[in-house]
């Protein structure tokens, strides 16, 4: 900190100013599209389509949101995604945390074997087709389990947790507990887990966001629309541009002409609604996310 006391010389001042301008420019490039979507979702679609709306909402309207909330596909998708996210994350934690704890223990005979077994899968896999055939032969196709079981754990997250346990749970504590006749299970539930709230939060967030955002497994394993997660519904609306009569309203002549206009406003509203939960928790959770990435990077 003593360095900052010295007055910056002229060359450095130019550099710092230039640096700041560049960063402001970066900020603008990232923030502008985000701002644009928010404004577009509550603006008159005609203004958005013609380019008259460029930053702040024009002719404020909540019509897009009304239509989206009136669509049963969105509600069902939301409900399903919520289910996949909650149950999926619980399964992830139930698999990841105990495995990571076992591998963090120095007295665990065979830890190198298990580690090698897990890490190999990061670099080599059977690929899409054999995995699909396996899931099919297990009878999981068109079942919600197809979205939960094939992603029950991630190697990288197990490594992050193992590192966390190694760094934060002192070996002495373990030995003392053992002396007092504490079993491994009791040790894990009574001592390790209560000390591990930060890493559990990080894991829940990593896995949770993953479940919330995933679409590909649903695309290949599900055909029954009843079980579609939100992202698959979004794919229909945003990518395949299937707006559907429920969203676009009546089918008379005027409505048909309006369809493209309405499609636009619905798209922006749907983007906001689908991303809202993550946007809401993001500011609170940002430091956890960052911490998770850093724990992972310290030790391989």
């Amino acid at each position: 900190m003593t360095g900052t006391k010295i007055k910056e010389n002229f060359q450095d001042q130019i550099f710092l100013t230039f640096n700041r301008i560049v960063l402001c420019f970066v900020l603008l490039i990232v923030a502008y599209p985000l701002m644009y979507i928010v404004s577009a979702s509550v603006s008159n679609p005609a203004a958005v389509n013609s380019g008259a709306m460029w930053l702040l909402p024009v002719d404020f309207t909540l019509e897009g949101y009304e239509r989206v909330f009136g669509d049963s596909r969105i509600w069902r998708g939301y409900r399903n995604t919520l289910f996949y996210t909650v149950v999926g994350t619980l399964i992830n934690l139930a698999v990841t945390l105990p495995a990571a704890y076992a591998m963090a223990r120095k007295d665990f005979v065979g830890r190198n074997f298990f580690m090698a077994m897990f890490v190999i899968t990061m670099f080599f896999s059977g690929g899409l087709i054999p995995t699909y055939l396996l899931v099919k032969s297990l009878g999981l196709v068109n079942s919600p389990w197809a979205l939960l079981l094939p992603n029950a754990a991630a190697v990288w997250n197990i490594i992050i947790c193992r590192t966390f346990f190694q760094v934060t749970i002192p070996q002495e504590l373990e030995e003392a507990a053992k002396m007092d006749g504490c079993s491994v299970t009791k040790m894990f539930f009574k001592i390790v887990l209560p000390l591990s709230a930060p890493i559990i939060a990080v894991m829940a967030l990593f896995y949770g966001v993953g479940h919330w955002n995933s679409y590909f497994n649903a695309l290949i394993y599900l055909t029954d629309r009843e079980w579609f997660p939100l992202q698959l519904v979004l794919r229909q609306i945003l990518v395949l541009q299937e707006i559907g009569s429920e969203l676009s309203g009546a089918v008379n002549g005027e409505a048909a002409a309006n369809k493209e206009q309405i499609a636009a406003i619905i798209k922006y509203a749907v983007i906001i609604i689908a991303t809202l939960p993550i946007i809401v928790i993001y500011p609170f959770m940002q430091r956890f996310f960052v911490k998770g990435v850093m724990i992972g990077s310290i030790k391989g």
Partner: protein
Amino acid sequence: MKQNRQSQWKKALQTWQLYIFILPAFLYFLIFHYFPMYGVLIAFKNYVPTMGVWGSEWVGFQHFTDFFDSYYFWDLIRNTLGISLYSLALGFPLPILLALSLNEVKDSIFKRTVQTVTYAPHFISVVVMSGMIIAFLSPSTGMVNHFLGLFGIGPISFMTEPGWFKTVFVMSDVWQNTGWGTIIYLAALAGVDPQRHEAAIVDGATRLQRIWYINIPALIPTMIILLILNTGNLLAVGFEKILLLQNSLNMESSDVIATFVYRVGLLDAQYSFSAAVGLFNALINAALLIAVNQISKKVSETSLW
């Protein structure tokens, strides 16, 4: 030796509960990762579902030679490598530059604002991201073409002109992930010994000189590890996003090995052929990873293993 083994057994017995702890993960990897590796055998067979993996008839390298001889083979290789290298060329250095630049900012509110905003797009789902790209790039209603229109350019139909596909794909990735990519580099920069900077300041070094001679060398080990990891994924490029952005008009430049495997394997149900293509892809990936790791071991003594 004998005694040692005995004590190992004793230790294992004492901590038997740990094996129950690892059991779910063990079963998960065995079933969902190792079993498909066995299933890859169908690449050398004519897989018939009723006969199973083992019962189907062997055809050797037939599917591989069919793939190499097919007319789309070189297009797929060109697109896959093209998109990967393009992504690497921009996506790899930009987070480093942003981290170096952020590291020079001492005003913590400004720094935190830039970080919070640039991390945020990382959490947008790939479907929403693709939807945004398609909406923004629309020739008639998209904001990018409105903007270009101010300079008398366009309208450009980005999504249907094959020439634009790779740029659209890479630029949107850069927009989404550059901020997030800075985290590891910022952590590495925070670990630089402040005394080295103080010494350099006393010697009259400018900021640029300090970045060049102190900060960048400090980042090199992190850079190499990330470069190796990225290389391993070279052929597995953002497959999900490509699949979403692909359409019949841009197919010529957007079809990569992974999307081809999906289309041929799952949509056309040519399981064996598609598994062979997927295996070819995975082998090249693994070979590249090993090669880069070896080179880096020789040149810089930093490696994954």
